[in-house]
């Protein structure tokens, strides 16, 4: 499979995603510069972490206007699996592919540390190889990861099973102490209604080798293998 790794000016986890896909998973990856208008027929789209355009405005607020985003939106609507990690998640929120918004972390500080997240749903292209309730040890590195949405949106997310990851203890308990940034409902990642677009703040691509502290993130990238847009496997998994 071919992953398109979108590169915005200021992306800085683009090479990490590329390395994980190409050298750990052994799949194909291509960088797509933000000024391009095509994703070159990639099977999966990955919006990496970083500080797109410096993020001096709201995070991801300028990146959504990059020419490549029209292609990303078209691909998302056509059912192509789209994964936004950290800043990539923030861009997905800004462009409306996912609902909600990010606030500064509740203690107003940048946090870089390993956290635990619980997999809430396995019916997305990025979690179908995981077990429901599985706890993953993944790094976070962000200053604006405090997920927020109005109550009616939150209700819809919860009702529709769109909360994909929640911050939890190592034992899988969702507690306030295990929540590193103040996100509502301990939300670490969500998906859209069609379930093919997933965004999360933790970095699965940074946790693909035990040498760097954890390989729990592999399951996220591995899940999508063999999941072509509209293929039967995804529907089967969700049943």
């Amino acid at each position, binding site marked *: 499979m071919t992953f398109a790794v979108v590169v915005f000016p200021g992306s800085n986890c683009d090479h990490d995603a590329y390395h994980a896909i190409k050298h750990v998973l052994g799949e194909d990856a291509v960088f797509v510069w933000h000024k391009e208008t095509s994703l070159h027929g990639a099977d999966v789209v990955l919006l990496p972490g970083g500080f797109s355009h410096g*993020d001096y405005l709201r995070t991801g607020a300028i990146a959504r206007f990059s020419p490549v985003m029209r292609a990303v939106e078209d691909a998302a609507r056509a059912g192509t699996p789209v994964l936004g990690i950290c800043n990539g998640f923030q861009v997905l929120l800004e462009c409306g592919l996912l609902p909600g918004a990010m606030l500064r972390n509740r203690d107003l500080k940048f946090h870089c540390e390993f956290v635990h997240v619980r997999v809430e749903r396995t019916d997305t292209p990025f979690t179908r190889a995981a077990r429901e309730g599985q706890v993953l040890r993944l790094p976070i*590195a962000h200053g604006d990861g405090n997920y927020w949405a109005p109550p009616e949106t939150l209700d819809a997310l919860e009702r529709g099973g769109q909360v994909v990851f929640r911050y939890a203890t190592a034992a899988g308990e969702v507690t306030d102490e295990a929540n590193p940034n103040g996100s509502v409902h301990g939300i670490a990642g969500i998906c859209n209604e069609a379930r093919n677009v997933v965004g999360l703040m933790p970095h699965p691509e940074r946790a693909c080798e035990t040498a760097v*502290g954890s390989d729990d993130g592999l399951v996220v990238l591995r899940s999508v293998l063999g999941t072509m847009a509209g293929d039967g496997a995804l529907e089967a998994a969700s049943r």
Partner: protein
Amino acid sequence: MTSRTEGREMTIDAAVLERHGVTRDEYRRIVELMGREPYLTELGMFSVMWSEHCSYKSSRVHLKTLPTDGERVLQGPGENAGAVDVGDGLAAVFKIESHNHPSFIEPYQGAATGVGGIIRDIFTMGARPVALLDSLRFGAIDRPPTRRLVKGVVAGIGGYGNSIGIPTVGGEVMFDESYGGNPLVNVFCLGVARHDAIVKGVASGVGNPVYYVGAKTGRDGIHGATMASAEFDEKSAEKRPAVQVGDPFMEKLLLEACLEVMKTDAVVGVQDMGAAGLTCATSETGSRGGVGVEIDVTLVPQRETGMTPYEIMLSESQERMLLIVRRGREAEVERIFEKWDLHAVRIGEVTADGMLRVRAGGEVVAEMPNRALTDEAPVYRRPMREPAGHDERRRIPSDALGVVLPPQDVFLQLLASPTVASKRWVFEQYDHMVRTNTIAAAGAAAGVIRLKGTRRALAMSVDGNGRFCLLDPRHGAALAVAEAARNVACSGATPIAATNCLNFGNPERPEIMWQFAEAVAGIGEACRALGTPITGGNVSLYNETDGQSVLPTPVIGIVGLLEDASAVRTRVFPAAGLDVVLFGENLGELGGSEYLKTMHRLVRGMPPALDLARERALQALVVRLIGEGRLASAHDCAEGGLAVTLAECCFESGGVGAAVDVPAAPSDGGVDTVIATLFGESASRVVAAVAPGDVAAVLEAATAAGVPARRIGRTGGDRIVIAVDGARAIDCALGEAETRWATSLAHWMEGRAA
């Protein structure tokens, strides 16, 4: 006359010279080199290039004595950064630099631009920056201004490094009253390049175009270098405009664009515009290449209107570079910068006459030999004198020690001292994992990054101990080299090269100059003995406020090479049931120790002895044993001595305690023997965990290497138990000790419950 040439009409009098920090003698020298009186613009250019910060005029004679050669050295001092061979055709390009003065005036931007400046030095050489370390010194933590500075500096370092995507993989933070009015912010950056891709800051090829790339020039930072060459007083806050503002996003674009351009061979030379801005970049590239450079300041992209040539030449606006491009290849270079939406403007060309000629349109506004600004800068042999009372200070007044607390109380107090306590509050604000190379994270003694595509890894550590250097600058500086190298060795890497950042007070005072010269001598001795040549660095003088100098603080950065990345070790005991082995000898030396400072508010005594041959043998042994897989963990003994070291090995292990029994050390001048044994800071010691089956082989290897070593106990249990000569001195729940250590800094910084 137009404002553009205002520099020509102004008379240069004593007041003008004083404002520029130029002495009468220096002015006479300028007139002599020019063959005429300089214009104001020219005086400004001389003043920044001849400032202490740029010219090293007080330090140069001493720095020349440092060892700079070695079989791995590809680039020694004199370029933007040093470079050493690390195998597989790769080079490690690294340097450390200070940003002390700006960080005091405006902590966030001062620290941020310090990070930005050193990163530029590295990619200027054609290397991709892959790791940052910081060595920080602040005043007493119980003073509110200190906490404001810590918060600002840490946020500034994070704000820049996190955004640009270079991991901060380690560093150190220490606190002492002497840094209260003058914090130290030293930033180390390491990059990786292929040998044949290293680019130098040399202009060559008459007729080659000179390009200005990156951010526009504004009025920020004018005379930054001059500011960094003077003491602080109550008026320093007025100098705030001389601190630049950083834009990590701009630098990220510049970094990617420059590395892309340097992959072509369209670029002859590159220099970043840091201190002294355009003046420094043009004159240094020109003088290194033995050529002239001619530029037109009206072509320089400007952020503000009405800037004079004086302001343009002296601006220290950030995120700017000077490129010397091969003639005929201009379009290729411009295309790449355009892709990254950056300015790339041809502002001049290389000439044959060795002159730096600055035009404003048709008019020449400054003209002098490049060498006059650089090689001809004054060199001072400043007078030196051992400080009065120096011998007295080196004696521990045992009568002043007062009541000695029980060892366990001392232990818990030391663990909570901000210098010893966990720095998690700091390093969690830094992205230490981006680039997915970090295999020994922040909080271990050395930062270790793997080199993707090879089996190897690089370890790096920055260390310095101002107290030791106050008590004996030569010896204290050698101890800093030894400690940095030992930290690197404890990760399993062989130390291969060094960089230094020398932070001292006013060199015009003979006592300070003496400290400086002694420290440089000590660094030289240690680097020679340990096989770690100095490939570059930085000198920061005038670290004084209201006549009060900081502790003499040479900070040493050591880079080490780990042949097999998978063999990397950290300080943490990985399991229960391992034997604990202590390498080295415990001499119970308390001079300059954290114990004396924390418990008795004293900086007295002789710093620990250092036998460099024995130190080298110890490091080689540790590296070899780690390579053979015989050490499960390794940790250097430093602040707080053996007791604190052992505790640190237990911390973050997931609850692996330890019980050890050590022989009493010889008593140090009437000090309690148990205290000296537990908290003395003797050098050349390492605590390691060893599988019981390997202990005999490990001890045998130590004997063969001439390194004292003994098994002192075993890991396991949920307590830290330390006995001296069989008598239990410390017996403490690991959880209690770890909580003290882990929460102290956050408690100080945020008033959270400890």
